[in-house]
C-alpha cells in the first residue's frame, strides 16, 4: 500500500462556526493506481490533494504514507518525505518564468542534492523522453500551454517520484492538448507504474483513471 487516510477532518473557524473543508475522508491507495478526484467547485478536491501532498495540515485523523505516520511527523520530516516521493503538476503549470526549460527541469534535482553530472544526465533523459530537446533553451513564455504543461509533467517526474499529484492538469488547455497530456499520464501509469492522483472536472479525463472518488462539501459520496 502506498498511502492510507483514516477519518481525516479539516476545518476552519469562521464567525464562531466550524466550517468543514474535509469531513471523515477514508482512502487507501495502492501503488500503480490512477485515481481521479471529482466534484463541484468548493467540494474540497484541491484541499484533499494538498493534504495528500503534505502541503497542508489536517485537524483530525491519521495519514500513513509508506509506513510513515504523516500526522506525527515534524514539518521538516514531512517536507523530506514529499520531496522524495511526490511530484506535483498544476493547472497553471507554475514554471519559473526567468528560467529556461532545461533549468526548470533541473531545479528539483538541485534541492535533492544530485551531483552536476547526474543532473545533466537526468535532464537530458527527460528532454529526450518527452521529445522536447529542441525546446530546452526556450523560456516558458515562448511555449504553448500544452508544451508548458509537458514541461510541468516532466519536472514532476524527473526525480522518479512514486506518486504524481495533478490539480486539474488540463484546466488551461484545449481539447487536443488535453488528450496529449492525459495520454501521457496513462502511459506513465501503465508502462512505468507511476501512481497518479488527479483532480478533474471532466468525465472524459476521469475515464483515463482506474478509480474515481467523488466529493461533495468535503465528504466522500
Amino acid at each position, binding site marked *: 500500500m502506498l498511502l492510507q487516510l483514516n477519518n481525516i477532518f479539516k476545518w476552519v473557524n469562521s464567525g464562531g462556526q466550524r466550517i468543514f473543508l474535509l469531513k471523515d475522508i477514508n482512502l487507501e491507495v495502492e501503488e500503480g493506481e490512477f485515481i481521479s478526484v471529482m466534484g463541484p467547485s468548493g467540494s474540497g478536491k484541491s484541499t484533499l490533494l494538498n493534504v495528500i501532498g503534505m*502541503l497542508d495540515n489536517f485537524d483530525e485523523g491519521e495519514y500513513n504514507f509508506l509506513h510513515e505516520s504523516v500526522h506525527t511527523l515534524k514539518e521538516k520530516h514531512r*517536507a523530506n518525505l514529499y*520531496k522524495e516521493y511526490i511530484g*506535483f503538476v498544476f493547472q497553471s503549470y507554475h514554471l519559473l518564468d526567468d528560467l529556461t526549460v532545461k533549468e526548470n527541469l533541473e531545479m528539483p534535482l538541485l534541492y535533492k542534492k544530485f551531483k552536476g553530472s547526474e543532473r545533466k544526465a537526468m535532464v537530458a533523459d527527460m528532454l529526450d523522453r518527452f521529445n522536447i530537446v529542441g525546446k530546452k533553451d526556450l523560456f516558458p513564455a515562448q511555449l504553448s500551454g500544452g508544451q508548458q504543461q509537458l514541461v510541468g509533467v516532466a519536472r514532476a517526474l524527473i526525480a522518479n517520484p512514486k506518486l504524481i499529484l495533478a490539480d486539474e492538469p488540463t484546466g488551461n488547455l484545449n481539447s487536443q492538448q488535453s488528450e496529449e497530456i492525459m495520454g501521457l499520464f496513462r502511459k506513465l501509469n501503465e508502462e512505468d507504474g507511476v501512481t497518479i492522483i488527479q483532480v478533474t472536472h471532466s468525465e472524459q479525463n476521469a475515464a483515463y483513471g482506474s478509480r474515481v472518488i467523488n466529493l461533495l462539501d468535503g465528504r466522500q459520496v
Partner: protein
Amino acid sequence: MFSINIVGLGIGIASCLVITLYVIDELSYDKYNKKADEIVNVVFRAKINGEEIKEGAVMAPVGETLKQEFPEVLDATRIRSIGMPKVTVENQSYRDNKFAFVDANFFNVFTLPIIEGNPRSALQEPNTAVITKAESEKFFGVGDAIGKSFFLEGQEQPFRVTGIIEEVPQNSHFHFDIFASIEGLDEAKSTSWFGGDFFTYLLLKKGSNYKDLESKLAHLPEKYMGPMMQEAMGVSFDDFTKENKLGFRVFPLTDIHLYSDNSPYSQLEQGGDIKYVYIFSAIALFMLLIACINFMNLSTATAAKRAKEVGIRKVLGSNKNQLLYQFLSESFIATLIAMLFAAILVIVSLPYYNELSGKELQLDFLWEPFVVLALLLLTFFISLLAGGYPAFFLSSFKPITALKNKFIGGNNNKGVRSGLVVFQFVVSAGLILATLVVNQQMQYIQNKDIGYEREQLLVLRDAYLLGNDRDVLKNELLKNPKVTSITNSASIPAGSTDNYMSQVYVDGEFSRRMPVYNIDENYIQTMGMELVAGRNFSKQFGTDSTNVIINQTAAKVLGFGNDAIGKIVTDGGGDHKVVGVVKDFHFKSLHQSIDPLFLFYRPFGGLIIKANSADMSGLIADANTLWNGFGSDETFGYTLLDDSYRQTYVAEQKMGTVLNVFALLTILVACLGLFGLVTFTAEQRFKEIGIRKVLGSSVTEIMTMLSKDFLKLIFISFFIAFPLGYYLMKKWLESFAYRIEMQWWLFVLAALATLLIALGTIGWKSFKAATMNPIKALKDE
C-alpha cells in the same frame, strides 16, 4: 509597510533638519555684525628655526599702523583678553567673568549695541567698562548700573560702568562679559613689534578686497621689525629671513570661527572646524537622499500590489482622472504626515541634541519663510515622485489586465534599486568605519602615555591668593595621610595654564622661542615625570634659581644631543646652566607635537597635590576646610587634572558622540529601506517561493536565495565605502600629531557590523517568506 515608510522618511528629514541647523549655525558665526563683510582679523605667521608660529594676536602698534598706512583701512580696534580674573564688587568677589580690554572704537566696529549709557563716549577714559546686562544684574542687582564701580584684582583704581550691552550673541568668536577701556593699559601703548597679545581687527572700506591688503602687508616686517631685530639680536633682517619666514596675514571676520588654527594661541575661544561642517553637510544630504529615495521606491513598489484595486475601481466606473487624483492625494497626505512627524521629532530632540553637541541651536530658523517654502516644495516633490508612478501608470491599465493581477511591478527598475542599496550601504558602512576610527582615536588619547600621571592630581590654582597662608595650607595638607606629595607651581600641563614664551639664545645666537614652566623641587616627582639625565632642582643648591631643566625636545632642538648637562643657554633673564633633562611630556593637546620646554626653579602660583587614592572627595573636603579656616574672602576652588585633560578633547568627544548618533540614524533609515525592499522582493517572488518549496527547497535555501542578491550588493558597497572612508579618515587623523594607524581589523569589524545589521534586517522577513505555506502561492485562480 506604509508606516515603516513614513517613519523612515520622517527620521531622515528630521536628522537632515537638525544637521542643517548645526551647519547654518556654524556658518553664521560673527555675521550678526552689520559690517561683518568689511571686518578682517590680522594675524601673525612665522617659521623660526623650525618652529611654526601661528598667532592670532599681534603686537600693539599693528592696528594703528595699518590704519595710518593704508587708506582702505577705515578703522582698527583691538582686544586684549585677560581670561577670568577676580573681580570684586562691594566685598563680593567673582572669578567667572570673561574680561577683555578693548579700544574705545570697539563698539563702532562690532555690532554690540549699547542699550544703556552713551555709546560714543563709553570707553574713552581709562578705568571705564561696558558690561553685559546679565553681568550688571549679577553685580548690582536689577536697576541702573551706570556709574557704579567694581575692582579688578591687582589694580587700585576701580572701574566705572559706562555702558550696558545685551549678551554677546552665541554665534560670536568671543564671549566677553566685561569690556574695559584699553586706555589705562600700559602694554597697549607699547611701540614694540617684538611681542604683543592684541587680537586686532580692521574695518575695511566697502568693496575693498582683503587679499589685496594682505599682499601689501609683505613689507611690514622689514620696515618695523627689522630695526628692532638689529638692535636686540644683532642680526640684520635680511640675514634673519634667509632661513626664517615671518609675516602678517588677513582673515575675514566670518572665517575666524571655522578656519582658524585650532591652537590656544591663535584664537580667543576654541572654534569650529570647516571639516566638520563638510562632513555633517554630507551626512545631511545623504540622509535626505536615502530617506526620499526609499520612500519613493517603496511607495512605487507597494503600488504594484494595487493593480487589482485599480481594476475593480475601473470596472465599477471610476475614470482615469479620479484614480490619478486618488493616488496623488494619498501620496501627498502620506508625505505630509512624514513631514509633520519630522517636525515633531526635531522639536522634541533638539534639546537632547544641544546637550550632546554642546550647541545652542534654536528652532527659529525653521520658521523662516524660505525654509517653510523649501519644505513644502520638498513635500510636493517627494509626493509627486512617490505617487506619480501608480497615478499615471496604473490608472492607465485596462481593467481586465489589472484584475488578473498579471502585472508584476517594478522588475524593470531592478538596476535602480540595486544602485540604491549600494549607495545606502556605502554611506552606512562608511559611517560605521568613521565611528570606529574616531572612537579608536579617542581611546588612544585617553590611554596614551603622556609622560606624566594625570590621575589623582588635585589642582588648587588659586592657592596663591591666600598669600603667606598658602605655605601654611601646604604644610597642613602634607600632614594629611591622603596626600602623597605637593608641588607649588602655576604650570599645569592640561587645562588653562599660565604660559609664557621665552626667547632663547645659545652661544649668543637666537635659537627659538620656548614655553617656560616655573616649578619647585617637588614638581617632577609629584607629576610622575621622569628625569633622563642630570638632577632635579634642590634646596641644597643655592644657585638653582639660575639653573634650568629642559625637556628632551629642547635638548634636540638646541643641538645638545645626549650631552645637554652643563650647557649654557641664555634668555631675557641671563645665562642658565642646564642641570637636568626631563623626559618629554605632553603639555599641549595631542594635535600638536611636543615643543621644547624650559623648566625654571621659581616656585609660585597654586598648589598641585598628589593623592594616594583614587577617591579624591575626602581630600577635597579636607582642603576646603583648611582653606575656610584662613578666614580669607577668597572662595575655595579646585580642578582635577584628569578632568582638565579630558576637557582638552571635548570638541572631538562631542563630535564623536554626534557622529555616533547620526551614523546610527543613517543606518536605521537605510535598514528601514532595506527592510521595505526585502518585503517587496519577497512579495514579488511569492509565487516563485511557493513553487520552489513544493519542488523541495528548504527554508534555508529560500532564505539564502532572498538574501544573496542583497548581500552581493552590500559587498560591492564595501569596495566603495572602505577606500573612501580610509582616505577621509586619514585626513581627519592627520590633524593629530599623535594618532592611531588604521588597522585592517577596523575594516573587518566595520564590514561585519554592516553585514550583521543587514542580515538582521533581511533575516526576519525572508524567514517569514520562506516558512509560509506554499499552497497560498499556488492557488490556481
